[in-house]
């Protein structure tokens, strides 16, 4: 069963990392809020499993792209907040570039005619 989680992480890896970094660029957030933000921003399409989210957060933290600290939420609950580090910000830029290249490439591959027309 653990393998299943792992596979899903791998499937989303990179993408999920990018989404998390993207979410954090507007300020520190805890895991629950990150999950909710991704879901809301994707129009309820992308649901991030907690089983993928937390491993991803810890992995990003180990990479040094995010840092964490314990703080109180607005509702007065203690939670672990993650924020983007300088190298995380650079990583986000890289990922975003890679992502636009990828989408452009996929779009090109999906619509070869329009590509030819553009030439």
């Amino acid at each position, binding site marked *: 069963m*653990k393998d299943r989680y792992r596979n899903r992480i791998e499937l989303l890896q990179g993408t999920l990392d990018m989404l998390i970094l993207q979410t954090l660029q507007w300020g520190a957030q805890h895991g629950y809020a990150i999950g909710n933000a991704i879901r809301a921003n994707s129009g309820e399409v992308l649901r991030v499993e907690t089983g993928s989210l937390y491993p991803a957060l810890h992995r990003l933290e180990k990479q040094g792209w995010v840092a964490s600290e314990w703080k109180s939420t607005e509702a007065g609950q203690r939670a672990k907040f993650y924020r983007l580090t300088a190298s995380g910000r650079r990583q986000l830029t890289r990922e975003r570039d890679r992502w636009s290249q990828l989408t452009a490439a996929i779009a090109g591959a999906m619509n070869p005619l329009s590509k030819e027309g553009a030439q």
Partner: protein
Amino acid sequence: MKLPWRARHAQLDEELQSHLRMAIRDRIERGEDPRQAEIAARREFGNVGLIADTTRDHWRFFSLERLLRELRHALRGMRRDPGFTAAAVLILGVGMAAATVMFSLVDTVLLRPLPFPAADRILAIGEIIPFFGTNPLVAVTLREYQLWRESGALQPTTAVHSASFTLLGAGQPERIEGVQVTADFFRLFGIEPELGRDFRAGEDKPGAPPIAILSHQLWARKFHSDPAIVGQAIHLGDSLRTVVGVMPPGFDFPRRADISRLIWAPEQTEAWVPFQFTEEEVRQGNFNYLVLGRLASGVSRAQAQARLQAITHQIYEEQARGNDEFAEIVRQNLPGIVVRPESLQATMTGGIRSALWMLFGAVALLLVLIYANLANLFLTRSAARLREQNIRQALGASRWHIFEERFVESAAIGAMAAALGILLTFWGLAAIKDFGANRLPRLYELTLNPRALLVLTALGIAAAFLFGAVPGWLRSRAPLASPTRSTAGSRAETRLRAWLVTAEIALSLILLVGGALLLESFRHVLDSDPGFDTRNLLTAAVPLPGNQYPTASRQYRQFERLLDAVRRQPGVEAASMANAVPLTGEAEIHTLRAGATSQPSAPAFHAEYRMVDPEYLRAMRIPLIRGRWFQDTDGETAAVVSLNLAQSLFPGRNPLGLQFREGDNPPLTVVGVVGEVRNGTLETQPTLQYYRPAATETYSYMFFVIRTRVAPESVIAEVRRAVNGIDPEQPVAHIRTMQEILHGGTLPRRFETWLLASFAAIALFLSVLGVFGVLSLSVARRAREFGIRMALGATRPGILRLVMGEATRLIAAGVAAGVALALLSRPLLKDLLFGVTAGDPKVYAVTIAVLVAAGMLACWIPARKAAHGDPARVLREE
């Protein structure tokens, strides 16, 4: 204080809990029922423990924390199954110790170079003289030393001769064992004295001032490590000698255990004096001297050999000039006379090399067997734990995780076995040192060295990998099915286990055959008749001191005075003397021809010459076969011959009264025939022998043989007192009982036999255990099948036959493979056997019978269990 990873765990848990709390809160705020909200949030969240686990995996690949967790788990498992753990640790520990001890032995004795610079260029030069018979390699003569030294093939060259001295004036008088060496001795080894200097050129010439060099040990023991000893004169032997140097600790060459193939050497050399031999000693031509040389630069060993051999052959030819008898011996034998310069290390270890490699091979087999056995044991155990494992996997434990756990568990067992192995290794090394340090070469250096520890560690890691990996690998291929059913593993596993057991039986058969052959050889050796009574017999070397007895008759009279004094001691039954002691390999060979006149055409026989006192026969208890033994009235011409010599000289005739000649000397008349005596070892055939009374010809150096009424050791002091009562200056050296001589001669054989037999015993035990394990498991696996068979009318004896049939197939396959392999490995044992051939059918038959019987016995228990199961219960249970 919390451990750092505990705090980290708590934080992760709290993080996940806070997530859950927020999710529940949101749901409640959206208006859900609190209970429903919690259930829904939890469902959405998933398995908290599992998510925590997965997250933690990202912290580090193989953290200390996780390792400890696995270890705790493993230890819990071990406590649950102490029998398994103990068996695994014990078997593996014993195997590792056996392998490490053997490795240390081979490493110390055979592989490690001697502790001298460029030690491989130090040669010991022996000679093969076909008509000497007993010992294939003998020491050489001083004439050879002189000429070899000038040849330039060796640079430097030294001659060594044992000597012992009485040390006076430093506490209690003490007998110091040492050697006489020519001046180049220390330069040859490249070892400098720690104090003073070594010998200078010319100090080994007759007339040079008497000097000595002491061993570190002697210096510390008798002179309190006083550096002022250098330059002082000490009373060593028959003169005052000036100490010129002290050697560093650890240098005590030659040692008897190392060099006993060539010369009699001190157990440990404590003093070196210059060897100032005279021209007279050179002329005598005794093969008594150890010659060592360092291969000159630019000379190969083959070139050196050729040069030295040419010189030796030249010496023989020169000596043969003008001596017809000798010329003929030389003519006959010269091509067979071979000079053999071997590296000193090879000379030291030559007697034991093949045995050590054989034992090393045996221990390797044993180790393979142990690993097969343990693999089997672990397979069985992991089969028994299949249910637990399946349940855990169903609950989300990954395969990797379970594999890792198994690995940690086997690593823990490997570590415990290594600890036990180290203890056993120390013990084994001490036992082996105890057993043979003074007899077997280089054993005194034996220690647990870092390389051996490395071997031990490697074995432990290999075990962990093998036993963690093999079952894990098999499991990972098996589907994750039916955790409640089969507790006996898959079909592939059963096949693997059967293979393992077959291999175990085959390997143990090889070891058993080897052990049995060696035991049989040893029995033959002990059974071989030395030709005299070895019990209650004391021997001693008695050299008459100085030049007080210039003629043979005066020497004989002095010896008889000493012997009479010995004979008067209450513990002594008889005492006599001879020019050499049996079973030591010392011999003097003469050429004999039948007939009263010199007829060079008559066939020549080379026989050992013994000059003896009339009481010799009684003292030695040699059987008299015909005629009579010597009387005091016998003159120069009387001789007693051994039975084989009588048959050789005078085939088919009554030898009594017949004559034979010893070269050109006056003919000798046979007065009696006695049994043959083994003069070499128990393992060499007796040579031709003849005896003459010592009254007519005596040396100044004779051996006393003393038949005692009581334990011979208890008479040693009496003998010394008796001799020194006649002459206080008379040395009595090398006092040994004949049992000691015998014991020393068979020690290497006992060593090999003892080791191989114990390996074989362990192998037998393990393979029986293996058969038992496999059969038990197979019976457990097939309980349902047997139940059905019995329900359908199979009888209990039928089931018994079925199971025993399976066992028989396993054992038969193993035995067949084992016999084939044992027959293939015959050449390995050939050199070590005595009185039995490596393919001896009787030994094979007995060994196979023992193995099959033991194997069948091991099957009987599970087979009975299978036959006596209650079919109804078995069927209900499954």
